[in-house]
């Protein structure tokens, strides 16, 4: 299971990194989303991989570590909100400049050059 989880995290991260290096906003947004998925699984793994463990309430000797779950929950909420925001930003940018490029429009920079 360690190998499976570790390679999955590695693969998703690699794809995410590849995508955020693209020129267009859409692949960047997808890449950021994939990165946040990879991080969420990674955070779970930080609490050690264990199956069929009871929650901490029961007083058992071995229990599922609750803290990574709390961390993941927070991370999901934040990354979800951020993804929504960046999608809106990309969309507004596309509608105003009619291009999906993530670059700052050069025309604006040179507009007043005399």
């Amino acid at each position, binding site marked *: 299971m360690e190998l499976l989880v570790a390679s999955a995290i590695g693969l998703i991260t690699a794809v995410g990194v590849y995508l*955020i290096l693209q020129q267009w*906003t859409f692949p*960047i947004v997808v890449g*950021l989303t994939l*990165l*946040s998925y990879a*991080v969420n699984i*990674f*955070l779970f*793994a*930080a*609490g*050690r991989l264990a199956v069929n463990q009871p929650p901490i309430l029961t007083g058992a000797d071995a229990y599922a570590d609750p*803290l*990574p779950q709390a*961390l993941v929950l*927070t*991370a999901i909420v*934040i*990354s979800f*909100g*951020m993804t929504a*925001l*960046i999608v809106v*930003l*990309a969309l*507004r*940018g596309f509608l*105003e*400049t009619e291009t999906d490029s*993530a*670059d*700052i*429009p050069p025309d*604006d920079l040179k507009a*007043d*050059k*005399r």
Partner: protein
Amino acid sequence: MTAGFTTDWVIAPAILPAMTAALLIVAWRRDIQMQRIVSVISAVALLGIALFLFDLASDGTVRAYRVGAWPAPFGIVLVLDRLSALMLLLAAGLALTVLVYALAGWDKRGRHFHALFHFQLLGLNGAFLTGDIFNLFVFFEVMLIASYGLMLHGAGARRLRAGFQYVAINLVASTLFLIAVGLIYGITGTLNMADLAQKVPQVTAGNEALLKTGAILLFLVFAIKAAFVPLHWWLPATYAAASAPVAALFAIMTKVGAYAIIRIFGTIFGDGAGALANMVIPWILPAALLTLAVGTIGLLASRRLLDLAAFSIVASMGTLLIAISLFDVDGLTTALYYLVHSTLTGAALFLIVDLISERRGETLDWLVPANPISQAPILGTLFFLIALGVVGLPPLSGFIGKLMVLDATYETRHVWLIWALVLVSSLMMTISFARAGSVVFWKIDGRTTGATWATAAIAPMAAVAVLVTASAALSVFAGPAVEVFHATAVQALDPAGYIDAVLTSQPAAQPTGQ
């Protein structure tokens, strides 16, 4: 009873802006007048609280507030020591000044300026107070989310694009932060800074590499926030695209990165961290020198006043990091002095640039000959004074700051390199500011008439003047100020008091409310 009561005030700088922001959205979302009144009252109150806490912390004890009375390290703690109190005071003072500036009209150009402004303060204050790494992440996010909103305030295609890049880069930084948090938690089983300071030295040799990776990732995140070269690319575009009061408030955001480096790598990975002690310190100096060099080159190449202001922030971060890279008491004393100075002058620079460019009509802030501007004597004087401060010429605080940097690095191994770079860059900065000032104020053609000539609001100029006065005061009262910074540096580098306040001297864990 009374002791507990004063400690409870530690959480006030986080609660007040949070309540204010929520109230502004719920109660007066369309009433800009009420928003302004409430916003200013809240900012004044925040400054009062920050002053009170600063006075409280100046007795040298570290106070820990346990949220929900949960015993550390299980619950979240907010910790007030000299360093966090100093940062709180700086943030509150800057916020009030910038807010007064924004009242002249910037806050009407988009919706919810005041609510976002207070959310930003919540994130800043929380980041300064928290004693828990994950909590630091959350407050960073609060700060960033608000800053996304503020950055886009007023919209426009260019701002949207710069905003997209800013959000994307910070999302990547947040991802790195979470990976670092996961690694650190996976190895040590705790995220409480005081607890970590105790557990890190006990890490077994097999786990050292992983923990080190985590710590370096954390450093990388703070380096992105602090705009270390080569992680600074987001800064000039973002700051130049943001509206003036927002850019001025952002002047403290880079300092949050510097603060986090001092806090985390002073408390957790400091001298007492065993095998991992001071491991990132050797990385700071090369990055700092590069940052200063790139900032200076950017200044020389600026064709707009806004670029000038943005790159002067990069250059000032370089100087600040040179001081931090020493990581001893003298170095940190210098760093704190320079931090306060560069926040004040950096913010003032963005505001004066805005005042100038709104008087120049279509030429805006481009460094080309244009019509004369109204109130040129006052604005020119202010610009001149701020430039003196930024460049580091007497009589403002920049001179003393740079002198302290040179003095603190005198006995280090790379003294020649540092001195040469700091001095040459100061000369180059002088040249760029002299060039910019002479183009804007002296190379004039034609006459300005009409509306742009008539603009004369007192409040924005007073706000800039207050920042300049603060910088001057930092220069005049340099002696007492340095004493305070020295005590702060001593406390920041000695984690024993911090650990004791958070972990040891807590009331016996009692079941709450049941």
